């Protein structure tokens, strides 16, 4: 009898601990969001979107940083996602089951979790050292390298979910694989591939480490891809660690902006996946 009670108590203790762990996890998310909102809202104003980053002690906005982040994320996605989608297509279609595909898949998974600062060093070595100066294009390339594994992985997964019957039907009509891929597989996997793109954008728009020594930072308005460019993450890094109240308040506002953008992207991606699931079930 006492053994039974002991087992029940042990069960209760561990289940309670697991509830506590979940509560701690949720509390961390809530605490971070709460801090961002309370600290960030005070810095929110129209000047954030209309003025440049200020000199030390001055006041201003984040316009050049927001623009720089948008440009580098955009260029990074434009370069990285086609490569990721094409490579994912190779893994799911042409290379299915081949040795090369297995190796590429493995290496891609390693790249997916590799530290982003290493990517920054890589681009620094091959681009910044050669060009002898920091540039926005180097930053965009570093982001592209980070975006490739994300899009590759989702593209392959989503193409694998397309029912084999659709592919066979297209082949039976005499279509070559390229035509089947473009006209049947991509449309069928469209929302999945878009999800991958959203996740990739969410991932790279908050990356700081790879931009530190590629795009660097720029206090002024610059649209040249060939020179240093301001960007939100590095501005947040620099301003948050500064002793100036105005800078710190801008850093919080920037942090709030970037987190909202990323959470919206992540939630949109999840909704797309949820929207996709019924068709996935029907396809099997």
């Amino acid at each position, binding site marked *: 009898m006492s053994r039974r009670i002991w087992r029940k108590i042990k069960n209760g203790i561990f289940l309670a601990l697991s*509830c506590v762990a979940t509560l701690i*996890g*949720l509390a961390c*998310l809530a605490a971070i969001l709460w801090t961002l909102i309370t600290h960030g809202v005070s810095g929110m104003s129209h000047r954030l979107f209309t003025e440049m980053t200020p000199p030390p002690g001055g006041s201003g906005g984040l316009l050049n940083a927001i623009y720089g982040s948008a440009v580098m994320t955009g260029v990074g996605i434009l370069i990285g996602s086609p490569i990721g989608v094409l490579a994912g297509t*190779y*893994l799911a279609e042409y290379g299915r089951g081949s040795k*090369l595909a297995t190796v590429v898949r493995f290496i891609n*998974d390693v790249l997916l979790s590799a530290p982003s600062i290493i990517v920054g060093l890589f681009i620094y070595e091959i681009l910044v050292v050669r060009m002898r100066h920091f540039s926005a294009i180097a930053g965009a390339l570093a982001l592209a390298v980070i975006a490739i594994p994300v899009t590759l992985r989702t593209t392959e997964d989503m193409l694998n979910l397309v029912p084999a019957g659709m592919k066979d039907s297209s082949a039976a009509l005499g279509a070559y694989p390229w035509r089947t891929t*473009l006209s049947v597989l991509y449309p069928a996997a469209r929302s999945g591939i878009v999800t991958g793109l959203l996740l990739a954008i969410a991932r790279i728009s908050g990356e700081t480490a790879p931009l530190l020594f590629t795009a660097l930072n720029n206090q002024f308005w610059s649209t040249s891809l060939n020179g240093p460019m301001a960007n939100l*993450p590095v501005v947040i890094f620099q301003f948050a660690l500064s002793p100036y109240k105005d800078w710190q308040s801008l850093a919080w506002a920037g942090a709030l902006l970037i987190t909202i953008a990323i959470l919206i992207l992540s939630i949109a991606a999840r909704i797309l996946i949820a929207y996709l699931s019924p068709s996935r079930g029907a396809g099997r």
Partner: protein
Amino acid sequence: MAIIDPRHAARQLVYERIFRWATLSAAVLVLLILGGVAISLIYGAWPALAHFGFRFVTREIWNPVTDQYGALGPIFGTVVTSTIAMLLAVPAGFGIALFLTELCPPLLKRPIGVAVELLAAVPSIIFGIWGLFVLAPVLQRHVQPWLIAHVGVLPGVGALFKGPPFGIGILTAGIVLAIMVLPFIAATTRDVFDTVPAMLKESGYGLGATTWEVIWNVVVPHSRVGIVGGIMLGLGRALGETMAVTFVIGNAHRISASLLAPGTTISSAIANEFTEAVGDLYTSSLIALGLLLFLITFAVIAAAQAMLLRLERRGASAA
């Protein structure tokens, strides 16, 4: 039967070759990137490695003035912060996965799952700024004085909690890292738990086992490989995490026994000093740190992937 236009067929074949070639080269490019990372890091690190030799990884000194560099301090910091992170995040992640798969009411399963995944999406710089301005002051005022007064006086473990409460330091960095890798460990462990066949679990319950006994004696043994894979994936993240650590670690190139003291990690040293590094040897030493980080994380992540792959294959053959 339609008559096939030979020119049309030929053109189709050309497109087919082009498309096939494009996908193949994109796939090969992925391999080239990893190879390029390795080669460029070795190339950049060569001057430092040639100058210091093996001493580079065994010396604690880090002095830009006399141009003497050793990686022991950053390596020590990386290992200790990651260890703290794993000690905290593994049990918590396991608990969250257990809660989500076994205890959670179905209605809450999705929202809580999504919330945990959103925690994973928050960029690392946000964790850094939060850790520096919110977590560090709390630790400095409430947690660290208690640790110093009560644990610091004990023999043995006491050495870990000595010195003034800085707020920032190795311990704080470890805690922030734990919060960051928690969602990764929780999500992979949950996914692995979900692969356990319901019949196995129900057999356990049928024998009269409690929920915990089913988890510990049925679910965990069945998904051991996957859990370890998930933990190592989290470890890979913790080892290479840069911005969050840079904010809260204090950036001191020295090894102290106390967890409350400031320290440095490989990635935070690079992030802090790279753009300010003057002199070829200094820059090269930082790139050599990057090479070390690359080798360590590559080994950990590759082992994790190999384990998860093995689990996937086993799952596929069982289905």
